[in-house]
């Protein structure tokens, strides 16, 4: 039994799950059980928990993509802008402003928006793997320019659309559960299969630990980096579709704004080392749920939304510190030093 427990707690997803359950428990006590209640209206499930899963959908998708990027020791802060671009393209096509010959086809809009995300990801990957720009700068180019490109697509306007098929991406239900959840299950499942059933995951970890050594070991590092940034871009575009379906339009200024921090935070909470190397996609997805539930909790507590960002920023630093080997050394020294002092005090 004990052996089993220690094996369980050794799993990277163990602590995130515990944290998530604690937050849920905290909320349940806080609201006197109302938090957990799930009601069924018109055959759909409603409730705070369902909301967390639905609203956390895009963050879970982003976190899954971001995990792989961070595992290589890179970063992708352009995800928010890619979301804006994909939303802008999809809405413009449905609206008939862009490619009117498509006749506002929702399917084509989705396909082209995801293609745009893939192109953005390829661009990031190209800059990082071929031109060897630091990932933060390479993706910052798209972070700033991307929002501009989205603005140019919509010619600076907020586009509203009228398409029930498109609304379904965010607001639809299948078997009583919100549709974004199925998108998450599909994408994350696909990614998990790809990463764990092939050598991809192993190579990824190896690149994150030591790029040069991986290269000498015969891994085609550049090709992998390109693929990883492309996946991140594609996932971001899907998240952008969910977001724009949620607001029933495209708002280039605010779509996915500041979401990159949330995604990185989710990955950090999931226990993936932000320096590269060890990673777990599943933990990051749970991390995303934690971030979403923190947001829900803080809002439920009546704390102004402005404080959430401060809180999240501090949280990232704390988690990074706890992962830092140097910090552990200092902490150990501090603790042992104190013990030493105590011993002396006893001797006196």
């Amino acid at each position, binding site marked *: 039994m004990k052996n089993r427990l220690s094996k369980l707690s050794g799993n990277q997803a163990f602590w995130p799950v515990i944290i998530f359950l604690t937050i849920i428990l905290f909320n349940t006590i806080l609201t006197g059980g109302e938090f957990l209640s799930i009601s069924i209206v018109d055959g759909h499930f409603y409730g705070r928990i369902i909301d967390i899963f639905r609203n956390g959908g895009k963050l879970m998708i982003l976190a899954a993509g971001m995990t792989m990027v961070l595992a290589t020791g890179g970063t992708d802060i352009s995800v928010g802008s890619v979301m804006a671009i994909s939303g802008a393209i999809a809405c413009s096509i449905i609206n008939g402003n862009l490619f009117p010959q498509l006749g506002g086809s929702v399917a084509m809009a989705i396909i082209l928006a995801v293609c745009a995300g893939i192109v953005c990801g390829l661009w990031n990957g190209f800059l990082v793997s071929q031109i060897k*720009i630091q990932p933060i700068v390479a993706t*910052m180019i798209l*972070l700033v*320019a991307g929002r501009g490109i989205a603005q140019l697509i919509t010619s600076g306007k907020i586009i509203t659309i009228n398409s029930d098929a498109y609304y379904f991406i965010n607001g639809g239900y299948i078997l009583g559960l919100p549709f974004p959840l199925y998108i998450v299950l599909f994408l994350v499942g696909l990614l998990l299969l790809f990463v764990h059933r092939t050598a991809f995951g192993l190579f990824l970890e190896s690149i994150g630990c030591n790029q040069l050594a991986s290269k000498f070991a015969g891994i085609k590092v550049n090709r992998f980096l390109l693929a990883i940034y492309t996946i991140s871009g594609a996932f971001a575009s899907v998240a952008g579709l969910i977001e724009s379906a949620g607001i029933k339009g495209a708002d280039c200024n605010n779509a996915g704004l*500041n979401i990159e921090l949330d995604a990185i935070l989710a990955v950090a909470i999931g226990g993936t080392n932000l320096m590269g190397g060890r990673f777990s996609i599943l933990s990051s997805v749970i991390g995303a749920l934690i971030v979403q539930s923190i947001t829900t909790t803080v809002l439920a507590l009546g704390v*102004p939304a*402005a404080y959430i960002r401060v809180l999240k*920023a501090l949280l990232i*630093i704390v988690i990074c*510190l706890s992962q830092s080997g140097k910090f552990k050394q200092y902490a150990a020294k501090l603790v042992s030093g104190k013990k030493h002092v105590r011993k002396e005090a006893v001797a006196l």
Partner: protein
Amino acid sequence: MKDMKKIRIKNISLTMTVVLFAVMFIFGSARYDHFLSLSTFLNLFNDNAYLMIAGIGITFVLITGGIDISISSTIAFTGVFMAYCLERGVPSFVVIPTALIIGIIVGAVQGSLIHYFKLQPFIVTLAGQFLMRGLCVVISEASIPITDPFFKFMALGRIPIKLGESKALNGKIYYYVLIFVVVLVAALFILKKTAFGRAVYAIGGSEQSAELMGLNVARCKIGAYIISSFCASLAGVVFSFYTLAGYGLQNMGMELDAISSAVIGGTLLTGGVGSVFGTAVGAMIQGIIQTIVTYENLNTWWTKVTIAGLLCFFIVMQRIIAVRAEALKGKTAAAA
């Protein structure tokens, strides 16, 4: 002859930047009436003094091979903080130094986290960016106007410059541009003439070698981050002279502008190479892009897109130069 070649490789970026600036200015002059004038040129300083100051600060960090993406938030925070305090009657001679000290503290904390705990600069400064931006909104969500007489004096006070009778030869610079001049001269002095400045370059070349040489890496690295944040808060002060308001959402994404100024001015993102003079010219190039976009009556987002494109171009060019320099080095080594 060989020496000449070396110099050329080192300065090619800076030369290209100056040439590019001249070409763009000539292009503007040829295309639009009233473009070719002293006031257009001086307005580049008037409108971009804050960007130049912030760019000079970030150049230090980039030379050490690090990065600081928290500066735009620091600028916004300084503005909001000062406006909030001034609104509550705190005198300006207290508010400005306090704001600058906050900048120094932010830099010291970020630098220490990066150096002592070996955290990645981008994560730390990204968190710093969100922290400062969050604090802005915590202080005030709305834009706060500044009515303090000293700020008004700095905002409106200007020095007329007259080179001739014709209108094109008349211009003016605002007092706050002088702050930029002081910062530029100080930064040039620190980088070229002090042990600290040389150590900053050494760390950028190779941190390990610098440490083995006995340089105080901790002091210099943290110092670079302090300079960057200090310059950012100084830029914030200048920016509030410029706008006479504090607003928490001001200057979103400006770190890219500052980084592009440095890169366009010849600073290598890999560290070890860079000049603050180049950064100032780089910022002026962005100013001129902005001016041309305004003259063309285009969507202002074109400025961002163009600058991002220019940044890409310069980074790619740097790569090519670096590869060629490597090849050249290999050749001379083989010859020896």
